[in-house]
């Protein structure tokens, strides 16, 4: 249930750590896993946390940036076609650019399998675990 003002954690290495949803795209209802949303970066990660290896890579986005994102985890339980229900401990997203490619190059954290059905396999392949 991601809607206006929802705070999500950003789990990629684009530089954002906490983002706020300002719009749900292509939908009149709250967003769930696999939905595209518009977010504002509220908190950015400390640049040093990205490591000395890629300082140029760190923090592609800054606080106050408006970006598109894809929801990858939701607290609201989600029922699948075979009757299993999945619920995550938090709301999380991954920033993407206008054409739908992820801005970050790495992801940390589980993502929902619903991304596969919604043609986000690029994100799914970046994720370490999917449930």
């Amino acid at each position, binding site marked *: 249930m991601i809607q206006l003002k929802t705070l999500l954690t950003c789990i990629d290495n684009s530089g954002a750590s906490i983002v706020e949803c300002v719009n749900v795209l292509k939908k009149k209802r709250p967003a769930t896993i696999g939905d595209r949303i518009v977010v504002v970066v509220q908190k950015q990660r400390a640049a040093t946390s990205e490591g000395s290896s890629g300082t140029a890579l760190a923090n592609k986005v800054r606080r106050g940036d408006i970006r598109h994102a894809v929801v990858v985890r939701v607290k609201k339980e989600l029922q699948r076609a075979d*009757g299993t229900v999945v619920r995550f401990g938090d709301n999380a997203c991954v920033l993407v650019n206008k054409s739908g490619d992820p801005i970050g190059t790495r992801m940390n954290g589980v993502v929902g399998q619903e991304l596969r059905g919604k043609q986000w396999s690029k994100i799914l392949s970046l994720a370490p675990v999917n449930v």
Partner: protein
Amino acid sequence: MAALPTMRPLGCLRSLWNAPDMIPSQITRRCLSTVYSQRPKRVPLPQGVPEQFLSQLPTRMRPENAPKPIKVFNPPPSARKACTDPVAKVTESQLETLDPKGERKALFDYRRNPRSVRPGDIVRVTFKNGDPFNGVVLSIKLRGIDTSFLLRNELTRVAVEMSVKVFNPNIQSVEIVQRAQRKIRRARLYYMRSRKHDRRSVENIANAYVRQKKAFMGAGSRK
């Protein structure tokens, strides 16, 4: 009554002219309305009217135009007696196809079967399509064909809960990785969601079990 119209200069003349005419008519009307007369009773047609007189009757009164009796059909036989508990029947038939040996049912019937999965156990579910899922059993909902169990685990430091239907044909196997260490006094362990009681990740325990199982199976096959 007559006093009022006379106050008007010209209207008085008209009222005088009309007055004698009106008063008697009102009296007669009153007399008519107060006379009570019973409604005349309908005279039934005499029974044996000769046929040559029937043509004199109005058409609706003739015997051939009398109202026909409405045909009443008996209700169909009730299905209630044939099948007293249809829901149980459907459940039974579904279980027959999904769980012919009754193993799954026994595995989760924690009220009767002492060897079944119980809340607090760590369980590994293998799916036919997709990755296996490990977790602590928080609750088992016994609901006939909709029986399900709720697993909780922590993956990459994020809590994940999954409710799985027991008779889901996508499930390949359900294994008990570890029994609850202490006696659990509740049927629903939702308190394990709170930070104080959270088991956190059980992935290590499950992986150790898988390794052990593999070693055991491998040793068995070599001999």
